[in-house]
């Protein structure tokens, strides 16, 4: 108990220095938290992937389409529950800065393979009946003020021409990790017009989404799908949704690795700041430590004193830093376009990582001063002048 009080008093001796150190730590821990959140953002898409969904795409690259006729063939494979499909429509809404996913989907099945997109039944029925209607995610509805009945004009690029879609529903995300920034409309509406304008491109599907009954069968069903079309000009590559999403972000690996590396440099900087403070404090107290030793306090007490102070400061800094991470992340996600970054929130892992990093820093920063305090002989310590 006495030692605790001494630790506390010690840390208050240089109020300015201690508070500067805590502030420095807090800022660094906050930066660490924000950076990890940005990293998590990329991985969150992978986390959100369901285990019972497979994605079948053209084997060469997903920019090439698959024939619509594959649908029935895939549906016949035992273990397949529903086959749905989607096309990446892209296009431009007003100008290129307003980016969000726009996809042509099968209205009957799409929402049943994605149960995490919640639409109310009445809106869904109207959507199904009207060819030129669309359903938008709650997030973009909020951002652009889309209401039921609004007409969204889109300038096509992959599907050239001017298109108009009537909002007939707004879907809500079921989980925090559900992407609520998509705009979904009828595949047949697009396909009919393409049939007239560019007949060579009609009847094509971007990728198939296959809902399977038993996730354990994912590998064998994937193989069966690919075997069906192996010798056709449009061979498929089927994998779990998770693997599919992962392959999307693997291209950014270098950038993610760099960010990961930087997030650990931050810890290095925290260590330098706290280490510096602890070395200075211990140096100034060299004489005191000699006095304590003379009075009969053991090496253990000295270790406890220095380590305790280091940990106390680290804990205060980390606590403050983690607390400020939340408002900062909320602020960033408010200014960032939702369409680009649908998954931006602090995960528990970030908090645990931040806290344990601070703890580690607290330990490491005290090693050097402890070593010095223990090595100094009492006589030398008493003789020491600042």
């Amino acid at each position: 108990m006495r030692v605790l009080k001494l630790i506390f008093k010690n840390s208050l001796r240089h109020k300015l220095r201690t508070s500067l150190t805590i502030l420095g730590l807090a800022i660094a821990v906050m930066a660490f938290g924000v950076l990890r959140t940005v990293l998590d953002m990329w991985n969150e898409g992978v986390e959100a992937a369901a285990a019972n969904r497979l994605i079948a795409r053209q084997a060469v690259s997903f920019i090439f389409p698959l024939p619509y006729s594959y649908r029935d063939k895939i549906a016949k494979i035992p273990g397949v529950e529903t086959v749905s499909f989607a096309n990446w429509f892209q296009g431009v809404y007003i100008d290129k800065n307003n980016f969000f996913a726009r996809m042509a989907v099968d209205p009957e099945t799409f929402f049943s393979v994605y149960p995490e997109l919640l639409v109310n039944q009445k809106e869904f029925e109207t959507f199904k009946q009207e060819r030129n209607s669309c359903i938008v995610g709650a997030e973009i509805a909020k951002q652009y003020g889309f209401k039921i009945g609004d007409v969204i004009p889109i300038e096509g690029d992959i599907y050239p021409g001017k298109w108009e879609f009537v909002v007939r529903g707004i879907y809500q995300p079921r989980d925090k990790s559900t992407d609520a920034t998509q705009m979904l409309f009828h595949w047949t509406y697009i396909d009919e017009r393409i049939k007239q304008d560019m007949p060579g491109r009609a009847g094509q599907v971007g990728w198939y989404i296959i809902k399977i009954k038993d996730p354990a069968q994912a590998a064998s069903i994937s193989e069966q799908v690919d075997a069906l079309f192996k010798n056709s000009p449009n061979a498929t590559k089927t994998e779990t949704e998770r693997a599919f999403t992962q392959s999307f972000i693997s291209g950014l690996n270098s950038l993610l690795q760099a960010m990961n590396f930087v997030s650990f440099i931050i810890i290095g900087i925290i260590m330098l700041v706290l280490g510096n403070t602890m070395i200075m404090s211990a140096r100034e107290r060299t004489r005191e430590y000699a006095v304590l030793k003379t009075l009969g306090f053991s090496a253990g007490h000295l270790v406890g004193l220095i380590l305790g102070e280091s940990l106390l400061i680290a804990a205060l800094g980390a606590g403050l830093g983690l607390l400020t991470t939340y408002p900062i992340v909320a602020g960033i996600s408010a200014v960032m376009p939702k369409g680009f970054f649908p998954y931006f929130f602090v995960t528990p892992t970030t908090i645990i990582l931040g806290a344990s990093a601070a703890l580690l820093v607290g330990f490491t920063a005290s090693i050097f001063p402890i070593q010095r305090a223990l090595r100094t002989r009492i006589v030398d310590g008493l003789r020491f002048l600042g």
Partner: protein
Amino acid sequence: MKIPLKYTLRNFKSRRLTTAITVLGIALVVFVFAAVLMMAHGIQKTLVATGSQDNVIIARKSANGEISSIIVRSDYNTILTLPHIAKSSEGKPLISGETVVIINLPKRSGGLSNVCVRGVALEAFTLRPQVKIIEGRMFTAGAREIIVGSSIAKNFEGAGIGKTVEFGGNTWTIVGRFDGGGSAFDSEMWGDNDQLQDAFNRRGGYSTVTFKLDQPDAFNAFKAAFDREPRLQQFEPKPEQTFFAEQSENMTLFIRILGIFITIVFSFGSTIGAMITMYAAVANRTVEVGTLRALGFRRRSILSAFLSESLVIAFIGGVFGLLLASVLQFFSISMLNFQSFSELEFSFALSPSIIGWSMFFSLTMGLLGGFLPAVRAARLNIVNALRSA
């Protein structure tokens, strides 16, 4: 009277560890700051090098990149009727309708990535003189042959000469390797346009059309003629350099914003580190400061002595950080450019403005960190300072 700089420098010796830690802290921040700017600059440099000043590229107005643009043959023929398209000595127009697609290939470092495959006409090589075959030979028109950029050969599995790649229901033989002079073409595969269109079922449709202007400054005249053509309203001509530079915009903006946010936050940490060091320096030297004042040194001199001490620390840290960062120039990174959705190799590139900003940044940290402690030192009362022991 000024306090000699030697006094300042000698002081570092007496507290080596603390000074070294502070220098290291600042060096790390400057390193990250410079590295981020170098990365963004490297991407930009590569893409700017991809376009030539007197080439014009035509793409669909709404397209974000080459792969989402489509120009059908009849529109291509309309473009051919426009003025200011340069002609070769044989009188053929120097124009290349190109088909750009993406295929997946396994990277050497693991995982699949997107590689841009460009179907070109032979004119493409006149349009881009920076592209040269450095190994093997050109593809033969009419054959299923491709040539690969040097970065592709380096970073992707099975992209060497003599190897074959399967796509579009066909086997393609790699017959040559070309160097794109540090441009994005280094990260592409090129083949005969007709063959590629055939394989990808894109007959009669190009992605983009690139041509050379007959005079370097004819772009505005060309654009005026282009805008008058009612059949081409969905398309937009751009100088090739501008077009490719725009391909780097999103990526460099993302890297810069993130990087600058990180470094600004980092710099708070380091400034505080410098402040702690300087406060300790002042506290330890109270008697010294008193002595100096008693000898007749002015408050102003004390202030500038402590400030210059912290600026020297920051300067050393800045130089050290920049030295570390400049080593990065020897590395190149290959990653996905999410605007063109294909792999792009680039290297970290240092520029005088990056050096300037980094040094400015580190000296600012030193100035901010040293100012308050220096003020405290300057305001010490002579008698009290001498008495404190």
